[in-house]
Structures are given as structure tokens and as C-alpha cells.
């Protein structure tokens, strides 16, 4: 019974903070479809919860449920009363094929919710990293220095960013207790937000049917949305990379103030979730800046300022706040010329493991990337999608390359690559779904 009550409390807290974010951020969510706005609202609402919680901790006060629910409620009320709401364009109702695909997406979310909520979170990285830090912060009523510098827990990756542990602790504060079973409710919501963001963006750009296809492709991607991933950072990372990618394409085509705001916030939050988020936004921003330089449209500096700077700034601020932390997993001395033979040996082990006969996972991932690049290039409704192909490909190559610098067994390190690749899948769907939507519609899919 307490599990149901706690879950209901967490869902209510997320709903209030999402409403607050939705109304307070109306100005820069303007122009998006309804589904996109609510996907953004969920993501920004979680950021709001975490921010309120950390601000109170920094002030030496541990906020209780009244503050954690009251503060977003006040923000929502103030936004409704004082901010002018932008008029919304009417959105076409989905046709029968799209409705069927959307219904299947809802089933996929329900299936994952069942898997996620059937037991307390148990995956290794939840226990060792994200949940461990969240629980320590919650019970300590502070962000203790030992999270970063305790030699007894170097396995907890003290160098990782703290957004997810802060969200766990903030949601616990909103119900006044730590319940790692009820906290799992966050992950099906993130899956639903991922599907909604894909549906809304693709519908706005191409067609309702393409949007619904994008939603089901992502929602039913069970290598990502499975019980093992509950409590880990890949699901939040997938949503953050997707929102960043959508904002990047929007900004590349129309560099409006609202698209720029979305780009900067998505960049910051992607970096706050995981270091892979920083890598992706920096790679994408670099590619966008190169395109801008080649076209001489004067956007290179704004792109770097909005897409890359927030992520880099996050890293600098985190380092300044906690001090420097040695990276235990990687030995960068392999880059020295005298160690190149050893590096080549490690690289050979990694490649032979990833592309070994009888295991198709890596081949499929790279073929999917190639398909993405081919599908994205001539995309009629969003030619700027082409900026994402090189970013995804480079990201995947970096994943493989850094395994060669592993301090430990490089093959063990490489075993994480498929999991990281899964988090890139929703971004790939951006280009693939519009190309496949003809299967469900009579006419050619074009930009609306």
C-alpha cells in the first residue's frame, strides 16, 4: 500500500513541476506541437525539482514535501496569472493508421511500466552510481564531499554529473521519504516523453502518420526500455539527446530566439545527465559551426555559444565545485608515442570483440547509423537533419576508440558500447520514421 501511495506522490510531484515548467517556459516552447511542449515540460519540470532541491541544500535547509510541491505550484500559478500565453495553431487530428500506431505506443509504455515497477530498482549502475549518490544526498540532507573524494567508493564514478541523483533526491523530498521502488515510476514517464517528443516534432515537420511511426519505433525499442535500464542514466540521456537534436535542427533552419533557448537548455541538461551528453552536444555543435562557416551565414559563433558553451560551462562549474577527480577508468598515457604499440593491441582487442563473428549487435548499430545518414541527407521537410548523422557517427567512433584507453580489460569496457549506442536510437528515428511513413499512408510524405 505504501508503494502505491509513494508512487502516486511522486507522479503528483512530477505533474506539478511539469505544469510549472510548461507555463513558465511558454515563451520558448512557442511554435512546438502540443506533444513536444509536454515532453519538454516533463524534462524541464525535473530540472526545476532538482534545482529547487539543490538551492535549498546549498542554503543549508533540507526542503520537505510542502516546499518541493509548493514551489512549482507557485511558479505555475504565477506563470498562468502574469505571463501572456501565446496563441496555438490548431493541430490536425490523427487518422486511423496514426491512431493505431499511437495506441501501440501506449501499449509499449504500459509494458515497460510493468517491467519498471514490478520490483525496486536493482541494476548495477543504479546501486553503484545513480541510486547510491541520490540516496546518500537524500539522507545526508546535503551533497557530501565524500561523494567525490572518498577513496573507498571510487567505483561509484565520482567524476559523473549529478542531475539524476539530484532528481532522485528531489523526488524523495517531495514525498518525504526514500522509496527506490516508487522512484522507478520516473522511467516510463521518460519513455512516454521520448515518444511524445518524436511524435510532436515529426508530425510538425512531416505528417501525423510519420509522427506516430516515430513514436512507436522509439517506445517499442526494448533494448533501451527494459527493466535493466531502470535507474540508470541511458533513458534520461536518450531523451536529452533527442530534445537537443530537435532543437539543433530547428535552430539550424530558423535561428529564432525560442529555438536558441531550447538549444542552450537542452545542451546544459544533456551534459548534466552524463558525460556522453557533453560529447554529443560538442560534436554536433562543432559540425553545425563548420557548416555555418562553409555557408558564411554568420551563425558559427551563435551555434557554439548556444549549443556547446552551456555543456562546457556545466563541466567547468562542476569541476570548480568539487575539485579535480582522476579518471580511474582510462589511462591517457596510451597516447604517448612509446605506448602506441600497446594502444594498437588494445584497439585490436576492442574491435575484434565488437565486430566478432556471431554477434550482430555492433554491425546492426553501425548499419543503422549508415541508414540514418542516407535517410537524413535528402529529407525534404528537414534538410538540417543532416547535421546529426556526422555527430552520431563520430560519437559511436569515440565510444569505440576510448575503450582502447581502458585502464582495465578493454574488452570489458567495450561491453558497454551497445548500451550506449541504444541511447542514440531515438535520435536516429528522427530521420528514419519520415522515410518509412509511406508504408502507412497513401501519399508521399512531405513537410507540412
Amino acid at each position: 500500500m505504501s508503494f502505491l501511495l509513494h508512487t502516486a506522490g511522486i507522479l503528483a510531484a512530477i505533474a506539478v513541476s511539469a505544469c510549472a515548467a510548461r507555463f513558465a517556459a511558454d515563451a520558448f516552447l512557442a511554435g512546438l506541437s502540443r506533444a513536444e511542449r509536454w515532453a519538454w515540460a516533463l524534462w524541464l519540470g525535473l530540472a526545476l525539482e532538482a534545482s529547487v532541491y539543490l538551492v535549498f541544500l546549498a542554503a543549508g535547509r533540507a526542503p520537505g514535501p510542502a516546499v518541493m510541491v509548493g514551489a512549482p505550484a507557485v511558479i505555475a500559478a504565477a506563470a498562468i496569472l502574469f505571463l501572456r500565453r501565446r496563441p496555438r495553431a490548431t493541430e490536425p487530428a490523427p487518422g486511423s493508421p496514426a491512431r493505431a500506431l499511437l495506441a501501440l505506443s501506449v501499449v509499449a509504455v504500459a509494458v515497460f511500466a510493468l517491467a519498471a515497477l514490478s520490483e525496486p530498482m536493482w541494476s548495477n549502475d543504479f546501486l553503484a552510481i545513480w541510486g547510491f549518490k541520490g540516496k546518500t544526498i537524500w539522507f545526508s540532507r546535503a551533497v557530501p564531499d565524500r561523494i567525490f573524494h572518498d577513496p573507498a567508493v571510487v567505483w561509484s564514478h565520482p567524476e559523473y554529473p549529478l542531475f539524476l541523483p539530484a532528481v532522485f533526491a528531489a523526488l524523495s523530498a517531495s514525498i518525504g521519504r526514500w522509496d527506490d521502488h516508487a522512484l522507478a515510476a520516473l522511467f516510463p514517464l521518460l519513455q512516454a516523453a521520448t515518444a511524445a517528443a518524436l511524435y510532436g516534432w515529426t508530425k510538425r515537420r512531416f505528417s501525423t502518420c510519420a509522427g506516430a511511426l516515430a513514436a512507436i519505433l522509439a517506445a517499442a525499442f526494448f533494448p533501451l526500455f527494459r527493466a535493466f535500464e531502470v535507474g540508470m542514466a541511458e533513458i534520461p540521456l536518450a531523451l536529452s539527446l533527442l530534445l537537443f537534436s530537435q532543437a539543433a535542427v530547428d535552430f539550424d533552419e530558423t535561428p529564432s530566439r525560442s529555438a536558441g533557448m531550447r538549444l542552450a537548455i537542452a545542451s546544459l541538461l544533456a551534459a548534466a545527465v552524463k558525460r556522453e551528453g557533453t560529447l554529443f552536444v560538442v560534436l554536433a555543435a562543432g559540425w553545425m559551426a563548420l557548416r555555418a562557416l562553409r555557408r558564411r551565414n554568420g551563425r558559427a559563433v551563435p551555434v557554439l555559444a548556444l549549443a556547446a558553451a552551456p555543456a562546457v560551462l556545466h563541466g567547468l562549474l562542476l569541476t570548480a565545485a568539487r575539485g579535480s577527480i582522476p579518471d580511474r577508468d582510462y589511462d591517457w598515457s596510451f597516447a604517448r608515442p612509446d605506448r602506441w604499440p600497446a594502444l594498437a593491441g588494445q584497439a585490436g582487442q576492442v574491435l575484434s570483440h565488437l565486430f566478432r563473428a556471431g554477434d550482430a549487435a555492433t554491425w546492426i548499430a553501425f548499419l543503422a547509423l549508415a541508414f540514418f545518414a542516407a535517410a537524413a541527407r535528402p529529407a525534404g521537410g528537414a534538410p538540417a537533419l543532416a547535421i546529426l548523422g556526422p555527430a552520431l557517427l563520430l560519437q559511436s567512433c569515440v565510444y569505440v576508440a576510448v575503450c582502447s584507453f581502458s585502464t582495465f580489460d578493454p574488452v570489458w569496457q567495450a561491453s558497454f558500447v551497445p548500451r550506449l549506442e541504444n541511447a542514440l536510437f531515438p535520435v536516429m528515428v528522427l530521420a528514419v520514421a519520415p522515410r518509412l511513413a509511406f508504408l502507412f499512408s497513401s501519399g508521399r510524405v512531405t513537410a507540412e
Partner: protein
Amino acid sequence: MPSETARLHGSAFSGLRNVAPFVRGVASATPPSSTVALSFVSEKGDRATYAAAFELAPRRVVSFARRREADFAAVFLAPGGASAADRRLGGTRGTSVPFGELFRLR
């Protein structure tokens, strides 16, 4: 019992079913601000270490090699747990916890 099956019955402690009551016993007998040395905790990290550190948070959990930094030492006595040497390292005046003994060091 296979670890996957055991996990379904024993939550986060995977196949280490006896570790769960042991760690919960240690948790109920030690204050949240304390540092606890556990006999099976590894500095490098393994599943039992992660689960114990998570379950005991916000207590600081250290290996027996760091027991001088600890307020308590707990020895896991189930099969595959502590050796006789570990038991001696724990101390002399232990109190019983499920599947083990807990020693106050300070």
C-alpha cells in the same frame, strides 16, 4: 538458486540472499552517520559491494583494509563469507546480526 531467480525473490542482492538480512541487520544497529567496515566489501567494487553500500547509505562503507577509519566492523558469517582471520580482525566484543557479527571499534 540461479542468480536471476534469486534476484526475483531477494531484490537487489541478486544471488547473495543471505547478504540482504545481514546488511539490513547492520543498518538497524548502526547510526546513519557512522562508517562501517564490511568483511566482503571490495575496493575495486563488485555487485555485493554496490548493494551493501547502497543499502547502508548514507553510512560510509569501507573494506576491512580500511577498518581503522571505521566506527563499526561487520563480519559476514554465511558460507562463502568471512574467513577466521576476518573474524579476528573484527574485534573481540561482537553483537549478533543475521548471518554475521557486528563489532564496535570506537
